[in-house]
């Protein structure tokens, strides 16, 4: 039994080594490697070679994938994730004025974002978990608990800017495309919701749910979203330090907050995020003179039941 296991392990190791060597070849010399898979396995009989070919194909698509996914498909994926967002985090707070206010802050910022050509939708959901997240295509959630933690509009602008940047940089889509490429699965850009291949799109949505709500995005994507959020809030006219103040408050609350499905569990450690964002602040020497709009914010915060 152990011999068989050993054989399997060795076989797996060889396969992994082989795949890495092939990948190395692909990157080193594309022309030479172009038909390498066909030379090694011309009849396509070897399952392993075919799998390696599929992985390489998936990886290839990943590099150009996020731009190939057209906006309507991206948005439809986002809509379906939003349904799951409502299910997990609760329904929208029933206050039209509050919802309108958050949408005005969010859209004022989004107007200056790198994807200002798409519409953005913001919603405050009734949730005890401190969290905010964005669905591909521009639907952005913020929990009432996180909203209550804030003290001025610049802080709200900082959090919303962070989420807007995830949409602009297509971070969630990149994550799922990368995961699918590594698994040797198909490209989600190839299908539309109207097509018969619904299994593919459902797999993508289910994978995205895990990334957005459970695991969180890659930490470098989070750092990038933080860095770009400072700049976006600043260019809109808000004090970029707002985001840093929220991170500090979250850090102070960390020990006695619900962590499952929160910004604590789906984002990198707060001390590192703070370190990274604070080092960026040298770029914004006049930040203290930028808008905070505290009175307006507090007026709307009062609308939330404490």
């Amino acid at each position: 039994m152990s011999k068989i296991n050993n054989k399997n392990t060795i076989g797996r190791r060889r396969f992994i080594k082989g795949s890495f060597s092939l990948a190395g070849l692909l990157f080193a010399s594309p022309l030479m490697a172009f038909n390498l898979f066909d030379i090694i396995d011309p009849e396509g009989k070897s399952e392993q070679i075919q799998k390696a070919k599929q992985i390489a194909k998936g990886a290839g698509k990943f590099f150009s994938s996020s731009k190939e996914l057209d906006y309507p498909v991206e948005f439809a994926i986002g809509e379906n994730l939003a349904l799951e967002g409502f299910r997990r985090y609760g329904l929208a707070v029933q206050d039209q004025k509050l919802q309108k206010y958050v949408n005005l802050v969010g859209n004022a910022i989004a107007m200056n974002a790198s994807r200002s050509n798409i519409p953005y939708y913001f919603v405050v959901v009734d949730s005890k978990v401190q969290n905010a997240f964005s669905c591909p295509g521009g639907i952005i959630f913020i929990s009432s608990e996180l909203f209550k933690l804030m003290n001025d509009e610049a802080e709200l602008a900082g959090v919303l800017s962070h989420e807007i940047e995830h949409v602009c940089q297509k971070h969630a889509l990149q994550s799922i495309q990368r995961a699918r490429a590594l698994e040797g699965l198909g490209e989600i850009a190839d299908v539309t919701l109207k097509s018969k291949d619904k299994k593919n799109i459902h797999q993508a949505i289910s994978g995205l749910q895990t990334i957005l709500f459970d695991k969180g995005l890659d930490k470098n994507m989070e750092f990038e979203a933080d860095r770009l959020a400072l700049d976006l809030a600043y260019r809109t006219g808000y004090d970029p330090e707002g985001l840093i103040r929220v991170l500090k408050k979250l850090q102070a609350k960390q020990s006695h907050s619900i962590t499952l499905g929160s910004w604590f569990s789906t984002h990198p450690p707060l001390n590192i995020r703070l370190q990274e964002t604070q080092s960026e602040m040298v770029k914004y020497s006049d930040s203290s003179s930028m808008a905070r709009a505290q009175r307006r914010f507090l007026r709307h915060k009062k609308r939330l039941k404490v």
Partner: protein
Amino acid sequence: MRVKMCKNKIIVFSLLALILLSSASAGDYVWVSSMNAKLKKDRAAASKTLKTLPVHTRLIVKKYVKRWYFVETSEGDKAWIYRGKVTDIPPEKKEKKTDNNDNIFGNIFGDMMESDIASDTSHSDRSIRGLSAENRYERKTGMSNESKEYARFTDADKKYQNALDDLLKLKITDNELDTFLKQGKIGEYAE
């Protein structure tokens, strides 16, 4: 011999001067990076709007005073624009689409070898790039049919569908945004 050395020095200095001059002039441009970027007659949001510029419009910077650029357009119009509406990073040349999915290596290396990257997906520092106003997508008026179909397929509760439908029906106009920024003294309305 001396004359030759002198000539060489002149050539080297001329080249250096050329490089310096060209880099200086490159820094004198800014590009519109925001929707609804207005050219103002004076350095104030309340001042008369002369023109609303599309994203990516290149402007020549004449001077910079307290968060406002005094710029000149390619048509020769001279006016003020708020700094948050522009960037000093030039936009990418044009949008490029790769449709050849069969060529796996083309996909891997194609993008690395060409500089024409889709403008809204590039990942450069600050990433202040946008598409032109012509490509603007309209706000939705409710949940899409595809998503309704998906919701039926996955048996999503009606209350979540209604929540999403309500969210997508929410209207925000450019005028409302303008008034909101004005009331909060945000950005160009700060002074």
